[in-house]
C-alpha cells in the first residue's frame, strides 16, 4: 500500500501539485487520470523519487520514502517496477537482455536461471520468439510488453505505469490493460497507472484518482463515474458529444456498464 500525505510540488514559483492526499491499495489497479498538464506525471515522478516533493510524505507500507537516505532509496527502488510512456527499453540490448538486465544487476541467480526467469516473463506477456530482436525491430505494443516483462522480472511489490497505452491502437491497449490487471492480481502488487485512456479508466479502474490543476478533485471506482455529479470529472471522461449522449442514454435507461 502506498499512502500520499499532504504532498506539494512547486517548480520555482509555480505550484504543480497542491495538497495531494490519497491511498493506493495492494492488489488493485490504481489509476491517476487528468488532463495533459494537470500534474499526473509529476505526481508519479514524486512517488518513485525521480522528483523530490516540496513537502509532504510518500509512505510505502509505512516507510517514508521522501525522507529515506540515498542508500535506503536505492534499496527501496528494487521493490519497484516502472513502465514508461516510451517503454524506455535499452536500444543496444536485445529483448531478452532487456528483460534480464534487472536480474543481471541485482539477482544472485546463475546465468541459466536468469535466462529461464526472463523467458518466463516474456512468456507471461506473450512474447515468445522475440527474444533475439532489438527494440527498434519490434512494434510499439511489443515494446510495451517487453517493458512490462522487464518491470516484473524481479517480482516488484509496486508497479508504476506512465501512460502505458499512449500511441497504441485500441485493441493493443486492451491487451496491455488486461496484462497489467492480470499481473496485479496474480502477484498482489500495488499498481499505479497514469493514463488518459478512457477505455482503461472504465475497464480496469478499481481506484481512480482524478487530478485537476494539481489538486485531487475526485477519487472512486469506475462504476461510480457514470453517476458522478462532479462536472469536471464527467466533462473530462465524457469529453466528446458521442460519449455525452451515450452517458445520458445509460443514465435515463438505468443501464449498467
Amino acid at each position: 500500500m502506498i499512502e500520499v500525505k499532504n504532498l506539494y510540488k512547486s517548480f520555482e514559483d509555480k505550484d504543480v501539485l497542491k495538497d495531494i492526499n490519497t491511498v493506493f491499495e495492494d492488489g488493485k489497479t490504481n489509476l491517476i487520470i487528468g488532463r495533459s498538464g494537470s500534474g499526473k506525471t509529476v505526481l508519479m515522478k514524486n512517488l518513485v523519487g525521480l522528483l523530490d516533493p516540496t513537502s509532504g510524505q510518500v509512505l510505502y507500507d509505512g516507510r517514508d520514502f521522501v525522507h529515506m537516505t540515498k542508500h535506503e532509496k536505492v534499496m527501496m527502488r528494487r521493490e519497484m517496477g516502472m513502465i514508461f510512456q516510451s517503454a524506455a527499453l535499452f536500444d543496444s540490448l536485445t529483448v531478452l537482455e532487456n528483460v534480464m538486465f534487472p536480474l543481471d544487476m541485482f539477482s544472485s541467480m546463475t546465468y541459466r536461471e536468469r535466462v529461464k526467469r526472463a523467458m518466463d516473463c516474456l512468456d507471461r506477456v506473450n512474447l515468445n520468439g522475440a527474444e533475439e530482436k532489438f527494440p527498434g525491430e519490434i512494434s510499439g505494443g511489443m515494446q510495451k510488453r517487453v517493458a512490462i516483462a522487464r518491470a516484473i522480472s524481479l517480482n516488484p511489490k509496486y508497479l508504476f505505469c506512465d501512460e502505458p497505452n499512449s500511441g497504441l491502437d485500441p485493441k493493443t491497449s486492451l491487451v496491455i490493460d488486461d496484462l497489467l490487471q492480470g499481473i496485479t492480481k496474480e502477484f498482489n502488487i500495488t499498481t499505479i497507472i497514469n493514463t488518459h485512456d478512457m477505455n482503461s479508466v472504465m475497464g480496469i479502474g478499481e481506484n481512480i484518482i482524478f487530478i485537476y490543476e494539481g489538486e485531487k478533485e475526485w477519487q472512486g471506482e469506475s462504476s461510480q463515474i457514470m453517476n458522478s455529479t462532479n462536472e469536471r470529472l464527467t466533462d473530462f471522461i465524457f469529453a466528446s458529444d458521442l460519449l455525452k449522449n451515450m452517458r445520458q442514454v445509460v443514465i435515463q435507461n438505468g443501464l449498467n456498464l
Partner: protein
Amino acid sequence: MLIHKYLTIFGRYLTLMGRTFSRPERFRMFLKQYVKEMAQLGVNSIGIVLLISFFIGAVICIQMKLNIQSPWMPRWVSGYTTREILLLEFSSSIMCLILAGKVGSNIASELGTMRVTQQIDALEIMGVNSASYLILPKIMGMLTIMPCLVIFSSATGILGAYATAYVGHVLPPDDLTLGLQHDFKPWFMWMSIIKSQFFAFIISSVPAFCGYTVEGGSVNVGKASTDAVVTSSVLILFSDVFLTQLLS
C-alpha cells in the same frame, strides 16, 4: 553572473563525477561495459588515428625538408624535427583534439538520447547508479586505450615520413633515419602518454556530462553534442599549455 553560471556547471560536473567514481553495483556488468566501451570508443577509432597520423607524418616531413633544411643545417634536421613534432604534440594533443570530435560527439549523443528517451530514468528507478553504470566504463575504457592510440599514432606518423623518403624521394631514407634517432629522449614518449591520459579523461568525462544532463528533446541532444566537442577541445588546448610547462 557569468562566473556564477560557470561555477554552477562546474559544481554539477564534480557532483556527477562523484557519482560516477563510486563502486560499481556488479563488477561483472562493469567489466562487460568496460570491454564494450574500449572497443566502441578506442578500437573503432584506430582507423581514423592511423589514417590521419600517416598523412600528417608525411606532410610534416615534407614541410621540414622544404622549409627548414638548408646547406647550413645538418642533414638529419628534417627527421629530427618531424620526430619531435610527432612525439611532443601531434600524437598526444592534436590526435586527442581529433578524437574529441569523434568520441566526444558519440558519447554526448548516446547519453543525451538515453536521457530524453527516459532510459536513464529507467536505470534510476531500478536502483542502478546510472552515472557509474554508463559513464565509468567510458572513462576507464578511454584511459586504457589511449596510450595504445598514442603509440600507434607516433609509429604511423613515422611510417608516413618514411613513405615520403622511399616513395616520394623527398629526402634520403638514411638522413631521415639519422634524424629520427638523433638525441632521442624516451621521456618525450612518456610525456606524450601522460598528457594523453589527461586528455582522455577530458574527452570522455566532459561529453558524458553534456549528454547526461540534457533536458528537452532531440534539438538539445544536438546542442549537447556540439557543446561537448567545443568544450572538450578548448579544455584540451588549455590543459596542454599547463601540462607541457609542467612536464618539460
